[in-house]
């Protein structure tokens, strides 16, 4: 629905139609003396899969936590759909996220894990069953999570993020622990998700895998932006993503 603009009012660019889905501007986060995120600015266009890359400790996870309202920025802002996460009307219906593949109570079944969260966001139980089928956990749904393999936990995490049928998916290292078939499945899933006009931000340090999945990259190091742009443009001179990454993050010997 288009919002009618009153005469004399400055038109505001709608954030959800062609505009940026994620807007990070001058974002800074200090933990005591440590600068985890340092004046970081980038934005994500709609309908893309963006790889959020950087060495360990570069500030990727902290940035994602700030974006999701789990932590408060020291300065700057991190917005989704033009607003702070906590100010979204029904956040689970707009943004789905997995920060840790271990965020389950080990003694609770996969189904109950999904149901408890679905209840909180008023998502119908049928949606839980739908997702258990999608991530191929329907037969394991009654089992307690402690019996799940790492790959099964990754898939349960993905199901959690997808419960509200979100427009933006934020995943932190989703391929960890997946076997080759799982990685292939995830890649195809993320591609299809973006083809529907939805947006994915996926952090990774598995560059070879990321290079096969993402359209765009945001590379950070020491909490600062190193580069951002289209993957095919960054690698057009024949260099691989790994070459580019190592050269830019100064890790190359």
């Amino acid at each position, binding site marked *: 629905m288009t919002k009618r603009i009153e005469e004399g009012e400055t038109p505001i660019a709608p954030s959800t139609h062609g505009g940026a889905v994620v807007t990070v501007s001058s974002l800074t986060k200090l933990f005591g003396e440590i600068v985890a995120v340092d004046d970081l600015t980038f934005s994500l266009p709609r309908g893309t899969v963006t790889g959020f890359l950087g060495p360990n400790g570069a500030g990727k996870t902290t940035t994602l936590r700030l974006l999701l309202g789990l932590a408060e920025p020291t300065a700057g802002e991190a917005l989704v759909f033009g607003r702070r996460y906590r100010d979204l009307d029904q956040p689970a219906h707009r943004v789905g996220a997995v920060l840790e593949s271990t965020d389950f*109570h080990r003694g609770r079944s996969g189904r109950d894990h999904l149901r408890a969260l679905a209840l909180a966001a008023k998502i119908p139980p049928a949606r839980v069953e739908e997702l258990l089928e999608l991530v191929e956990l329907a037969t394991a749904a009654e089992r307690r999570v402690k019996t799940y393999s790492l790959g099964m936990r990754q898939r349960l995490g993905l199901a959690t993020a997808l419960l509200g049928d979100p427009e933006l998916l934020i995943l932190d290292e989703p391929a960890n622990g997946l076997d080759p078939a799982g990685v292939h499945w995830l890649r195809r899933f993320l591609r299809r998700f973006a083809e529907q006009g939805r947006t994915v931000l996926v952090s990774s340090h598995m560059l070879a895998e990321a290079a096969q999945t993402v359209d765009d990259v945001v590379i950070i190091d020491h909490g600062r932006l190193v580069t951002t742009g289209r993957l095919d443009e960054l690698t057009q001179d024949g260099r691989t993503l790994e070459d580019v990454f190592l050269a830019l993050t100064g890790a190359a010997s």
Partner: protein
Amino acid sequence: MALLRSELLKQRSTRTLLGLFAAMLGLVLSAALLHSLLPAEQLANRHTQLMVFGRGEFLGVLFAALLGAMSITAEIRHGTIRPTFLFSPRRDRVLAAKVLVSFTIGAGFGLVAGAAAVAAGTAALRARGIELQLDGRDYVLLVAGSAAAASLWAAIGVGVGALVRHQVPALVGICAWLLFVEGLLAGDLVGLGDVGRFLPGSAASAISGQDPGALLAPATGLALLAAYAAVAALAGALATSRRDVG
């Protein structure tokens, strides 16, 4: 309402609740039966009978407090606090739902503990042929007071858990406080003396009508403990809203 149902399912869907309940019931029955082995002349005393039957209130309070604390510390420990707050970014509402659900389950814990202690104690005294010195009001206070005290302590537990965040220190702290810290503070060693009856554990015992000479009146104890519970829950909600989630 949605959050209440979510929190209730979280409580029901692990074995923690059943484990705590079984441990509590086992301890209540053992405590009542062991105390009923005291010398007959001591047990014939009304004061001692109230003390023995009051073990239900004490254990109901202890386990309800642990249950309340675990409703938040278990989420932090397992990391489910992240999805919980992603699905409901209004953290104060999540805390309120935890307080309400823990309060309700805590009341059940207290009710069962109070009733079990009275039942086991009565049976044991009868078996030994010791005359019961308690009247109807005593029994009502012992059982209903235990339910009220445990429900309020469950809310205190949520607040303590939200403030401390780490599961082990929170649970150890609650146990330590109820088992001996209060006793030390109120006892001769620290010498708070008369002020001791205003501490939250003593207020809980007062609600179930124990030690009428030394403790507050049941209604006063109830009001005081409700104030403690409100302060703890508010402090926990405030801290949770302001701090970053790990």
